[in-house]
């Protein structure tokens, strides 16, 4: 399956597609932050208590990421070698999209982001002193709130989500072509959907750090 150039690309595409589904699921969970600490913490606890399912999902995600990264790395490295001597005059025939050109870089930013993101929340103590707001134990919600009082972290998360946005605007429409869907009428629509959905997912995620940064601590504790 993955021995040919198209096969590798289709592995990248299918893993990418599942990762996008994960992102959509993740984002809908995150939006519970807007419902308040109780809803969000209850959701986090629900996920925590899933036990075996949680670990299966985690291992699955790790596998998806690893496969996606290994196969893109193979493809990208081979592509670099496919033109040993570059052109003297570089002038593309049609405008090259930045999202497309930056795929390996936005992907790498996502990976870097992911490591810090896991350290920040997934692997952090959800009821340690960092989760206390105004003297009240606020669990994961408090941890998230406190962490986003630091503008540097907010900036880092926004950069991470900008990378996600760029990556997805190319990725969503690219998956369709990679699996062989092309249509004179629908492909331009798919490209537009890809652009809008990519930006929407990124903006959706990035809205949370801002919301947390500008919220008064008294609102967190309901005081």
């Amino acid at each position, binding site marked *: 399956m993955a021995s040919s150039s198209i096969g590798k690309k289709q592995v990248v595409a299918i893993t990418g597609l599942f990762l996008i589904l994960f992102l959509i699921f993740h984002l809908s969970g995150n939006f519970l932050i807007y419902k308040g600490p109780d809803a969000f913490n209850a959701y986090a606890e629900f996920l925590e208590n899933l036990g075996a399912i949680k670990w299966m999902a985690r291992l699955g995600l790790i596998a998806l990421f690893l496969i996606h990264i290994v196969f893109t790395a193979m493809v990208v490295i081979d*592509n670099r*070698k496919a033109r040993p001597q570059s052109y003297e*005059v570089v002038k593309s025939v049609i405008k090259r999209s930045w999202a497309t050109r930056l795929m390996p870089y936005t992907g790498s930013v996502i990976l870097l982001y992911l490591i810090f993101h896991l350290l920040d929340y997934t692997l952090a103590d959800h009821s340690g002193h960092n989760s206390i707001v105004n003297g009240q134990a606020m669990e994961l919600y408090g941890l998230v709130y406190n962490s986003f009082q630091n503008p540097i972290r907010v900036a880092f998360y926004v950069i991470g989500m900008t990378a996600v946005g760029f990556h997805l605007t190319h990725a969503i429409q690219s998956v369709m*072509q990679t699996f062989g869907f092309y249509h004179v009428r629908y492909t331009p629509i798919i490209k537009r959907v890809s652009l809008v959905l990519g930006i929407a997912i990124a903006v959706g995620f990035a809205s949370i750090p801002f919301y947390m940064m500008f919220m008064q601590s008294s609102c967190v504790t309901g005081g």
Partner: protein
Amino acid sequence: MTKTISLTLKVWRQKSGNASGKFVTYQVPTVDVNASFLEMLDVLNEQLLLKGEDPIAFDHDCREGICGMCGAVVNGQPHGPQRKTTMCQLHMRQFQDGDTITIEPYRARALPVLRDLVVDRSAFDRVVQSGGYVSVKTGQAPDANAILIPKQDADLAMDAAQCIGCAACVAACPNASAMLFVSAKVSHFALLPQGQPERQNRVLEMLATMDRERFGNCSNEYQCGAACPKGISVSNIARMNRDYLSSKMRLS
């Protein structure tokens, strides 16, 4: 009297595949705007020969845009600035007096430079040899319209069959991928009834050869389709992706 323009040419010169090459600048003071790009090079070559220098080697044959022999990268674009036009059909009226034109060979690992602007495109031949045909038993010529083909399929197959194998798609691709070429050859049979019996093997074999020849991988940038002098559509690449997937599934 026809109009003439004066040009500065920066041309890649390389004696052989092993030799190292470099750009050499030539002044061409009176270029007839009605000359084709290749005729302009012919005139320059005559001057070089008179001076006892080696003429610039470039590929060409029909000079009417149908054989696929010509092609080089002119100012960064395969076959030059005019869309859907081979280099032999490009005319000097596309340029302005005083222009500097950089002419370099296609650059791809799979298409090594043989001399000056000539590259070795035999990798394309090997791709076609590995499946770009239908096996037929010889005998009486079959009746012309014995097999019905829907008009739309026939049109799409003809569109794909327009590929002249010039390799501009490889030259234009940021990854030096040959997907547009191979997909055109695959599609032109995949769309016709005669192509069905060997459809699955064909796509797998031709792709295996494409990979063995060390072309790059497609990243859906679509420079190829825009650069193609015959306007081959990237929808053919989608069709090949689809055929690859279904062939793999059925054969495994």
